[in-house]
């Protein structure tokens, strides 16, 4: 039964059966190409399950392809001429069924040729450009077709982490966090997709002069060495914006929050120093310097409960401190102060703080080929290796990062970047259609450079010639938004949790780094049990509790009368016992479960 008649699904719902599914799909696709059906409708026939899927719903990814019939693309030279003259548009092509959009399911039925030369009568579609198989982001990686597939993934992933000139209205925006690269550059080596997206107008890279060379061990294991002189010339420098926000809330009963500089009588007053940056209106002055834990928005709230009546029957109102303070590690200038109104008519204030982030040791950089690295050293310009004509690299990349990762594209981009510099124009390296190596070599040779991109280098410290030649080129690098300044944290003593008295967790709460179960096991493995005890008790939640000798229960320590006694038998024969507070808590919880945990005391050996 089912074998003869195919199931037909529309948007995943079974609509009925059809005796000739192949003819049905053909008919429907024909209808779409003749503009009877919408261009966004996709029809797929699964031969194995004998089912026809018709999809018309939203949320499917589609991609355009040139329709091929009898081994000939429907798009002809004539069409291209017309497009060039502006007589035909994309929409016309789609309407005429020359170009159609396929979704993932219909693509399964298609036989797509990459290039027109490969076309055979079996082909159903032709790629507009072979880059079409890639995503927008991936297709922006130059020389991608020379890389390992995994590296394309890495490179594309880091596109999203790159800091650049993302929006031109950044002055007006109030994102909680925003980055802005100073002096972004067009990339010397580009792809077609970049042109289509106008990426040159919203650039996110800078063209670094890169030498592939080890540097005194400062660029081992994917670290990179950066030229200090280059940083001083604004390489990889960026602004970091953070917006702080506060609302003047109205409370039932007519009371209101107030933006002001809190006076000393305010409950929770933070001290004069904290309010230094505030102007008369309680808001920080524009371009004033702000340091960690300083107040940027001074605000007081009305008292939570009606105050007690003071002398002479006057109610003295003590307002509460409700200011917004800057994060501890933040340092910068007030960039902008904005006042607006919320939907309830409350005044909202937003203050944007700007701070500079110069590249420092530990910051992350990456090329477009998934070659990411962390700054290992910032070297004074005079110590950088230099070429015969005095060129010093901006960045030194370790040669070990190349062979195992097989990012040939990275090397080609360096070569192409060099050629682009000499030729003074951008070079197109769209994946599958990129400029070939011999051509690059020709350009380099024409401009008096070695065609293999190698150059003689001299050590900047000793002045001696470095043996062998060094591969040098110009390549687009991106600064990624992972910065040490935002992540660095350490603690010796600090806040503890109330319940367990163990140190808090997380950077926000100035927490400790957990010495966890697996870490403890390593110490046991080494037999270092006293170190383990120190880590787990002394450095954490050590307490000395008094235990009754007879009842084995935690005793009462009456500090006022300076007396210690057992709460059960009243005996004062109690002895100090060191334990972790967590264990004391366990004893308490056992007691709450009606279990009597009796401790037997033994003399300390």
């Amino acid at each position, binding site marked *: 039964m089912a074998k003869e008649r195919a199931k037909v699904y529309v948007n995943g719902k079974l609509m009925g059966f059809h005796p000739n599914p192949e003819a049905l799909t053909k008919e429907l696709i024909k209808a779409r190409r003749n503009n009877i059906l919408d261009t966004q409708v996709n029809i797929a026939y699964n031969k194995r399950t004998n089912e026809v899927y018709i999809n018309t719903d939203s949320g499917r990814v589609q991609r355009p392809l040139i329709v091929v019939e009898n081994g000939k693309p429907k798009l002809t030279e004539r069409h291209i001429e017309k497009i060039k003259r502006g007589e035909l548009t994309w929409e016309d092509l789609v309407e005429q069924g020359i170009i159609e959009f396929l979704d993932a399911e219909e693509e399964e039925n298609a036989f797509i040729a990459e290039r027109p030369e490969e076309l055979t009568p079996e082909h159903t579609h032709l790629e507009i450009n072979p880059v079409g198989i890639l995503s927008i982001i991936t297709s922006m990686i130059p020389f991608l077709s020379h890389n390992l597939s995994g590296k394309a993934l890495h490179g594309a992933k880091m596109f999203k982490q790159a800091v650049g000139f993302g929006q031109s209205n950044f002055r007006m925006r109030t994102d909680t966090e925003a980055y802005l690269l100073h002096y972004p550059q067009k990339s010397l080596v580009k792809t077609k997709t970049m042109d289509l997206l106008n990426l040159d107008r919203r650039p996110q890279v800078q063209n670094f002069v890169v030498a592939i060379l080890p540097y005194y061990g400062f660029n081992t294991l994917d670290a990179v060495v950066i030229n200090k002189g280059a940083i001083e010339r604004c390489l990889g420098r960026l602004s970091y914006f953070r917006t702080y926000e506060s609302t003047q809330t109205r409370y039932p009963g007519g009371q209101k929050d107030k933006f002001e500089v809190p006076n000393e009588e305010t409950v929770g007053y933070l001290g004069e120093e904290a309010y230094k940056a505030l102007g008369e209106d309680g808001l920080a002055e524009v371009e004033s310097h702000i340091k960690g834990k300083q107040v940027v928005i001074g605000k007081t709230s009305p008292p939570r409960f009606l105050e007690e009546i003071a002398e002479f029957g006057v109610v003295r109102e003590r307002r509460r401190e409700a200011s917004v303070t800057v994060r501890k590690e933040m340092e910068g200038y007030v960039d902008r102060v904005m006042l607006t109104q919320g939907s309830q008519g409350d005044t909202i204030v937003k203050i944007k703080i700007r701070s500079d982030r110069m590249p420092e040791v530990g910051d992350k950089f990456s090329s477009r080929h998934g070659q990411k690295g962390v700054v290992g050293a910032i070297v004074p310009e005079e110590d950088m290796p230099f070429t015969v004509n005095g060129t010093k690299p901006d960045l030194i990349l370790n040669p070990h990062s190349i062979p195992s990762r097989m990012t040939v594209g990275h090397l080609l981009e360096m070569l192409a970047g060099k050629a682009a510099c000499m030729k003074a124009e951008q070079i197109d390296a769209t994946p599958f259609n990129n400029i070939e190596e011999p051509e690059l070599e020709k350009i380099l040779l024409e401009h008096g450079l070695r065609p293999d991109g190698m150059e003689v280098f001299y050590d900047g410290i000793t002045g001696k010639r470095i043996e062998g030649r060094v591969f040098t080129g110009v390549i687009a690098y991106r600064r990624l938004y992972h910065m040490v300044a935002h992540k660095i944290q350490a603690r010796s003593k600090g806040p503890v949790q109330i319940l367990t008295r163990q140190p808090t967790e997380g950077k926000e709460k100035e927490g400790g780094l957990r010495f966890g179960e697996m870490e403890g*096991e390593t110490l*046991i493995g080494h*037999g*270092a049990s*006293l170190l*383990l*005890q120190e880590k787990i008790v002394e450095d954490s939640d050590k307490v000395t509790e008094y235990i009754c000798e007879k009842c084995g229960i935690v005793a009462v320590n009456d500090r006022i009368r300076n007396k210690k006694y057992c709460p059960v038998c009243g005996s004062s024969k109690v002895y100090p016992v060191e334990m972790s507070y967590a264990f004391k808590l366990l004893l308490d919880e056992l007691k709450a479960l009606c279990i009597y945990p009796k401790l037997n005391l033994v003399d300390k050996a």
Partner: protein
Amino acid sequence: MPSRKKNKGKAPKKKTTAKEVKKEDKKEKKEITLKDRFADLRGNLPEKVWDSIFEIAEKKKLSEEKIKKLIEEAKKEYAKVVVEPCEAVGIIAAQSLGEPGTQLTLRTKHYAGALEVSVGSGIQRVEEIVDGRSKTKYASMTIYLNEKIRHNKKKAEEFARDLVDVRTEDVAKVKEDFLKKTAEIEIIDEKVAERNLDKEVLLSRIKEAVKKGKVMKRTNKLIIHFPKEYSLLKLRSEVLKIMRKRLQGISGIEKTIVVEENGEYIIKTLGTNLKAVLKRKEIDPYRTTTNDIMEISKVLGIEAGRRAIVDELHKTLSENRIRVDLRHLLVLADLLTFTGEIRGTVRTGIMRLKQSPFARAAFEETVKHLFDSALYGEREPLQGVVENLIVGLPVKVGTGRVELVMRE
């Protein structure tokens, strides 16, 4: 593997000629004299080290003084290697197994089109062994054959076919007639041919399964007339019994494959039944084995089970190119078997045997263990690792084990 050693010993013996026997005799005489002379210097050196010392001494023709020195050096080196007192052997074993274990594949490998019986490998298999599960997911036997058919592919295949568990329902379909109280069992030719069986033999076997009633035999089927007094229920249950009757083979063995290995034919199976296979004369009982550890320990005893744990773990790990020192596996295998039966590292296994209530509570089912120990008034002796961690005392391992006592 004691069994394998035996075989290795057997094979060359066939070829031993008179000359070789003489040589062996000479050697033995020499060894006895040299070793005996130094016997009181041996100390705690293990046999292997002791033997190799004299092997070297003989090869290099060392003087007696040098041999003495060599023994002393060996003793020093050996002392360095021996586990020190208070060393946390268990935790080191756990870490040594656990760390490379993270590299084990989580996926099962599927070899497309391979003739191998698929055996669970990777982390699932390790988990299966360590947890002491009673059912192996991909139970499989490796059957070695006796000398007569070891090199005969045809006979090996015949025997392999003979082992497969075939039930009536595998090769026949049934039609019941409740009015006439008859059942018609028809043999499906394709299925018989697939298994390479003899139809006549099958039919006679099926016939044997019928307890009461007349059986009429046709070319391809049996018609059974059950007694008229049978109720419908009884009839149905009788038919089912016949359908489930084992016509040949060993119960539990689903599939067999003959593989050539080291110049002999061996049989690999899907499904296992060690006890029944060991009874067959055609096999080599010393080497035939299964990967079902529980079964080995039931049939051959706990020591064999312990050995099987080590072998199976070693096999799975080395298949994944993970090298773990054998002694770590030995520690684990001892832990799993020391009670006399295989107990896994799960809450129903060795964890339940833990003496300390805190240690049990720290693992799983915390509240249950706390309540139970309160009910029975258990004492916490604070001897183990977790217990002391909970209380905040130094763990009694390594430096924490040592205590100083004042001389009185």
